[in-house]
């Protein structure tokens, strides 16, 4: 295998706290050395770039099997690489649902052949994600899932959720929940508030998230399970996660870039590129999740990359499916909203894409040190660029950030010592 050296970049590794200009020598898919004046047959000039451990996106939808018209493991993997990610965790709401070892194995085998990045499947909590009977959690664990979740179809029955947590704990798996009380949110298309009333769209109230976060935290305490709140968006939910952490519970949470970037009043009226779950919340919620990132209530940045083809998004707002693409704009939005504004340090941002998700999922990833697998994300913090959705690697084109100018973004992605994506410079 090849030897390559990344020359003269600013190497930042949250696990060790290392932050300094150095060369990174990669050999045989591993980090061989980090230091001065390292040489190899092939050199990549990383001057002015951040050299970070490979970024992990613990919440994506790759749509395969079953919805290959929206995305595939291959195209989603390419979009991840183009977004600076070296590992993604794919949610189980495929067709069939990933509720068995067979589907898990299919995804892993398929990814091994076609995906440029590491793919870690998340298994369903219940059979068919129907919320009634537990899925084959143990068998899926043996096949390679890293967590369980009924993302998009939250477990409404508290008893089932309790049993799922008990089971997950016994297999050493975290439980990830998409927190939404479906009775409270029924029929809703956007955040309930002044904007929804004005536009005449039915609301998804913040309390539909809050009540389920509250329930799950109480169940996590009862069961001792590791519990992770997916795409947190509401301010009281952030407060409750803070409360759970203060009690010493193994509770973590993630936020999506669009939820710390946009609020409901930023929605272009009836443009379905602004429709997702949870919905874009009020400016107070945006402020709360941003503070939650800065103060530690929120651990991880994840994209909830949810591709849908244009034919499904080009409809009346209330008929469109929920979800937007996120892989290729995550670093740019995080820099824009969190680092350039001084809300968090660059090192903290990198941690939220690396060791923090790894701590939730135990992937054995997220470090940049000699001996580690050579998964590396290279990005810069100042280059001006615009996001052009038409050049996206994803199969779908649903994003509210088309044409948005960014300052700083991904430059190259290395998985197992090989470049899987490079910016045309």
């Amino acid at each position: 295998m090849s030897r390559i050296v990344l020359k003269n970049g600013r190497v930042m590794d949250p696990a060790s706290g290392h932050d300094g200009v150095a060369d990174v020598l990669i050999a045989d898919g591993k980090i061989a050395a980090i230091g001065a004046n390292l040489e190899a047959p092939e050199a990549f000039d990383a001057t002015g770039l951040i050299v970070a451990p490979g970024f992990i996106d613990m919440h994506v939808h790759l749509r395969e099997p079953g919805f290959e018209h929206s995305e595939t493991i291959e195209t989603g993997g390419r979009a991840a690489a183009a977004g600076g990610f070296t590992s993604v965790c794919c949610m189980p709401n495929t067709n069939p649902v990933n509720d068995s070892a067979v589907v898990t194995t299919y995804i892993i085998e398929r990814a091994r052949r076609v995906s440029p990045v590491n793919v870690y499947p998340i298994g369903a909590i219940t059979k068919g994600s129907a919320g009634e009977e537990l899925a084959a959690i143990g068998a899926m664990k043996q096949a390679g899932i890293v967590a369980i979740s009924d993302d998009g179809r939250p477990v409404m029955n508290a008893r089932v959720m309790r049993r799922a947590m008990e089971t997950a704990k016994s297999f050493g798996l975290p439980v990830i929940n998409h927190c939404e009380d479906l009775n409270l949110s029924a029929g809703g298309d956007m955040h309930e508030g002044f904007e929804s009333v004005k536009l005449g769209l039915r609301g998804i109230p913040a309390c539909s998230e809050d009540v389920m976060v509250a329930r799950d935290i109480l169940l996590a305490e009862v069961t001792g399970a590791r519990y992770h709140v997916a795409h947190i968006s509401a301010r009281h939910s952030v407060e409750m996660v803070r409360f759970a952490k203060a009690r010493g519970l193994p509770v973590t949470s993630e936020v999506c870039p669009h939820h710390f970037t946009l609020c409901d009043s930023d929605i272009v009226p009836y443009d379905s590129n602004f429709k997702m779950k949870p919905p874009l919340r009020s400016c107070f919620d945006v402020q709360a999740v941003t503070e939650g990132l800065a103060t530690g209530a929120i651990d991880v940045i994840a994209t909830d990359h949810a591709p849908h083809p244009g034919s499904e998004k080009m409809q009346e707002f209330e008929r469109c499916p929920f979800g937007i693409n996120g892989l290729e704009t995550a670093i740019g939005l995080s820099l824009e909203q969190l680092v350039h504004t001084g809300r968090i340090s660059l090192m903290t941002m990198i941690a939220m894409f690396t060791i923090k998700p790894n701590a939730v999922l135990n992937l054995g990833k997220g470090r940049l040190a000699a001996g580690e697998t050579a998964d590396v994300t290279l990005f810069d913090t100042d280059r001006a660029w615009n996001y052009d959705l038409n050049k996206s690697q994803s199969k779908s084109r649903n994003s509210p950030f088309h044409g948005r100018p960014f300052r700083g973004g991904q430059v190259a992605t290395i998985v197992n010592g090989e470049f899987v994506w490079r910016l045309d410079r």
Partner: protein
Amino acid sequence: MTRGLLGIENLDRAEIEAYLERAKFFQAHGEGQFKKLDTLRGKTLVNLFFENSTRTRTSFEIAAKRLGADTISISSSGSSTSKGESLVDTLNTLAAMRPHAIVMRHAASGAPHFLARHLEMPIINAGDGLHEHPTQALLDALTILDYKPKLEGLRVAIIGDIVHSRVARSNVYLLSKFGAGVVLCGPAPLLPPALGQLTNNVTLTHDIREAIAGADVIMMLRVQLERQHETPFPPGDYFRFYGLRPDHLNLCKPDAIVMHPGPINRGREISSEVADSKHSVILNQVENGVAIRMAVLERVMG
């Protein structure tokens, strides 16, 4: 955006006044035997109704015919949308036949706004979901002005299922632009507090007597059962607390008018005695609907 009419929110006073002035001309012209005009001769109007409607569709048709236009009316059950065609494709197909405007009613809020971003064709919104119903607000203003010298300073009570009402929203925008005070009244689940922020001229109450006290205009709304995913208020209690009865009329101004966009449900939101009383101008609203729609069609298609 096209030069259609999508809503009241983004119109200014001058535009609204222009519609009302022109409608007054058509009102006068319509007295006695109506003489057909040829303002829109040779022009084609498509009425595209994705939701049931008798009065609005008929009103637009009559307005168009009185101006000499050719009209085609399509209801969703008779169109290819029932065969799985998307709304954009349906509209593109119609637009390819080069009508001069499309009047559209749709159950989805924002459906005409969404289409207007993708089509050149002028679109006239004949009601979109829970959002706006601009020609209704215009005809309501025309009707009020038949009985009151001006809108400024009037107290207008709008009572009923406010959150599901496009009529309420369009009226709030129009009346506020002219300095009328609007009181919105309904059961709590149908009157979210955010409605009070629609304009600076809006107040909210759950007490019908408070809403009516001193009112110059009372607008009753239908309970839109078809738009609700639940039963937000005990149906048996509705008339008891939010139905307009004769004794209520002692609370408003003596010359107050009672309006209703129709169709009325006697005994549910309004008693028969009130609907048929001298205060009621419900049929005048229907009549004025034609004049307003003539003014709108003339401006958009002329």
